[in-house]
């Protein structure tokens, strides 16, 4: 049996996690985008690893040491694979309006920067959600995720994957907007189905 002091500590911790989780919106989609990028990158580099491993085995067949050149190739491959392993992060910044958001690529991270003031309005004082703020954040997130999955090919440094090179900034905006509409509609549709199933269960 847990002591009541410990129960309170655990309850507080759980409460803090719930509060922190309110800061993240559309988190499943964010995580899925991240997995998608990792999948593309690892597929590419698995193939490169196979090729290099084969090459090393052939060149060292007669008991030769791995040449400096091959070692360099190996080091380069490891660095590239690591650099491509981008993750998505969310941050909140002061913006001039709640209609502003940015995705910044810094080292291995895609950071989605959202308006701080919007995030602060997500929960009402009584603990309920402010639906309009939630929906605004979700829209910004969906748009920025669009940029991440559609317009970052060249940043992953993979040859032959340069789908967004040559696309104008205006086109990119239109594409991200289209992506956001599509993914949010699909999400709404799925939620409708899900909720109606739950409802059916109860009746």
């Amino acid at each position, binding site marked *: 049996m847990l002591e009541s002091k410990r129960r309170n500590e655990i309850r507080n911790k759980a409460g803090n996690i719930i509060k922190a989780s309110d800061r993240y919106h559309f988190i499943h989609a964010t995580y899925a985008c991240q997995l998608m990028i990792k999948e593309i990158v690892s597929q590419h580099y698995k193939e490169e690893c196979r090729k290099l491993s084969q090459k090393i085995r052939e060149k060292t067949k007669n008991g030769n040491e791995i040449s400096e050149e091959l070692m360099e190739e190996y080091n380069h491959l490891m660095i590239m694979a690591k650099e491509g392993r981008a*993750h998505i992060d969310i*941050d909140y*910044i002061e913006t001039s309006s709640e209609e502003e*958001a940015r*995705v910044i*690529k810094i080292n291995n991270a895609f950071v989605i*920067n959202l308006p701080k003031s919007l995030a602060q309005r997500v929960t009402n004082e009584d603990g309920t959600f402010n639906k309009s703020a939630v929906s605004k954040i979700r829209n910004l997130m969906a748009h920025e995720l669009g940029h991440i999955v559609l317009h970052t090919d060249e940043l992953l440094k993979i040859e032959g994957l340069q789908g967004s090179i040559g696309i104008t900034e205006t086109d990119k905006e239109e594409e*991200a907007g289209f992506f956001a509409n599509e993914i949010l509609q699909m999400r709404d549709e799925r939620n409708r189905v899900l909720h109606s199933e739950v409802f059916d269960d109860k009746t």
Partner: protein
Amino acid sequence: MERKKIQTLIELAITFEEADQIIEEYTGYKTDSEKIAYIRGMFDCRIIGRVGNDLHTDYVALLTSIINQKWR
């Protein structure tokens, strides 16, 4: 040497305001576009997606991402 010092001080900053103050103090740059050019030359960072086109938000997002990368 001076450049390395500024870079270190920016990286150690905790808040955007602190980092921005360091940039102003050591470089004399006052406008957002000057500051953006400066930090983009110093760090491997870039804007790859946006909603809205406020230049100051560009700067805040870039600099905040730079100073927060140490926690990622």
